[in-house]
């Protein structure tokens, strides 16, 4: 049983006009076995939250805390966070020319598991995971994400999720840019990851579409850098019906008063 606690997290990003605060006090707790849908309009800071937790150097955490089973994540390096059990499926996975997917996956598995996986088991494991995600075997010899389509990149993010089996996964708009079939394949991959019941997921999305495949336990609406409202799956139904207007207006009214 693991817990990821985000407490009053403030973060800013450097822009040409100086630093700009994006996260304005985020509070959220995810326990293993829970799926949290994290929804909000574009520009609300959802991706910033994901990157800040993962430790991207572009985002500067100014105050607050992120605890993984009581340990301060913000004091860890990016790779330490990953080895501690955090995973970020990126919205725009990065191309790494000259590094083969198979070399990359094996290096990542070796790092997170603390020892190199046995070759024979590993090859089988990767093959199975690739076939589950309908990824052609030829991809393992290609450079990481290089020349992959948007959908192929997303499948590979979930491939890594299935192989590395982190305690907590933050999925940053993994559903965006996927066609109906790819969305099903990717969602099945995420469901395979959570089926053991001891994984926690923070599913960041703009649309409710993916929630037809992945059933959240909690839904949070994120507006202007903080959680505006939390609830159960019914909150997602409301967003499907009426969009974000109620939340963005409430926020503005509060700001004006």
């Amino acid at each position, binding site marked *: 049983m693991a817990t990821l606690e985000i407490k009053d997290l403030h973060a800013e990003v450097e822009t040409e006009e100086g630093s700009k605060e994006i996260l304005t006090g985020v509070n959220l707790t995810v326990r293993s076995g829970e799926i949290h849908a994290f929804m909000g309009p574009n520009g609300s800071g959802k991706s910033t939250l994901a990157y800040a937790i*993962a*430790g*991207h*150097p*572009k985002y500067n955490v100014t105050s607050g805390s992120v605890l993984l089973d009581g340990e301060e994540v913000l004091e860890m*390096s*990016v*790779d330490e*966070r*990953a*080895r501690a059990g955090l*995973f*970020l499926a*990126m919205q725009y*996975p*990065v*191309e*790494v*020319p*000259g*590094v083969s997917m198979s*070399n*990359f996956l094996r*290096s*990542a598995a070796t*790092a*997170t598991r603390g020892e190199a996986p046995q070759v024979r088991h590993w090859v089988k494991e990767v093959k199975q995971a690739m076939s589950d995600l309908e990824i052609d075997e030829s991809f393992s010899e290609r*450079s*990481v994400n290089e020349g992959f389509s948007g959908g192929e990149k997303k499948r590979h993010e979930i491939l*890594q999720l299935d192989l*590395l089996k982190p305690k907590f996964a933050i999925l940053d708009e993994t559903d965006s840019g996927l066609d109906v079939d790819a969305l099903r394949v990717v969602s099945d991959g995420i469901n395979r990851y959570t089926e053991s019941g001891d994984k926690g997921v923070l599913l960041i999305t703009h649309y409710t579409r993916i929630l037809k495949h992945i059933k959240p336990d909690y839904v949070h609406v994120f507006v202007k850098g903080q959680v505006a409202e939390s609830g159960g799956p019914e909150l997602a139904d409301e967003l499907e019906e009426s969009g974000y207007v109620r939340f963005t207006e409430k926020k503005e009214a509060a700001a004006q008063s």
Partner: protein
Amino acid sequence: MTESTLETSGRNGLDERDPQNSAVPPRSSRGHRFTSYDVRAFEVPGGREEDWRFTPMKRLRGLHDGSAEATGSLDVEVSGDSAVKVETVDRSDERLGTAGAPADRIAAQAWSSFTEATVVTIPKDTQAAGPVTVTVHGPGQDRIAYGHLQIRAEPLSEAVVVLDYRGSGIIGDNIEMIAEDSAQLSVVTIHDFADDATQVSSEHAYLGKDAVFRHFAASLGGDLVRVNTKVTFGDRGGDADVLGVYFADSGQHLEHRLLMDHAQPNCRSNVTYKGALQGDSARSVWIGDVLIQAAAEGTETFELNRNLVLTEGARADSVPNLEIETGEIAGAGHASAIGRFDDDQLFYLQARGIPYDQARRLVVRGFFGELLQKITVDEVRERLEAAIDKELAAVGA
């Protein structure tokens, strides 16, 4: 002392053309260059000339101004297939200088100053088994030496030659690489000097009809290494791949100047150099000139230079230049880029648990990998991979 470990023979070369002793008048074009075997035909460069503006003149140790008299000699060892002929000849040997005339003062100084030359000949129709290794040891710290080497692949022959520079000293030399008609010659040159070495090398490649020339340069060590590589197409159908990698550390100056001189129809050239730089005042210069002369119809050429600046304080200069004098070409292009080390690539690998040092190594290996894979000699490829890993480990960071 020049010595060789292979049996030598007195066989003369096939190429009877006289070295052109007449100077070609200078033109404003970068491609059409003034050349002469006579050092006095060149003015002492001051450092502002187009040819020298990137080079720290003081660190040339007098190679450029006539003050560097030879105080030592190069030690040349050749090993490989016994079918390959190795000769040590004096300056009067008529084969010398046929691949091209010196195009700058240091090349002319080296031409005027060498006393013995090594000639490596792959006989007609011979396929050399395994690589031919030419190891050149510098004259030693602060000693000055001039050298001359000719590698000649006779018609229909095939060979891979590894030219391995080691040791220390101040070196000026000319290297001739001749692929005669339908020969296939690969030359891998490794500049792996001690930290204090200075080398200014002029490479003259000459391709006969349908010759295939593959050149791979790796510059790792030395205080200053400047290499001029000119490829001359002597007849139709020549095909040249000129590739290189360099890794400049703190204080190092590594300079590569390429000229693909297309004067014949239906020839192809491909130039790709990649460099990484790290540490204070690490410096690299890459000048890629391609000249497609009016007669060179059907030319296909591409040149590319990529630089990866790993730390603050390092500087890479990259200047591609294409001069085209005919419209009837198959294709010509160039590209050049200098990039900071990509934080996003590092972040991505680290976000999967891979530690910083290993992630950095993966990215840099990946950057060079595409080129290193083209080296067919396993030991050489592995040595260069290991050297790059070592460079990365050295800075730690």
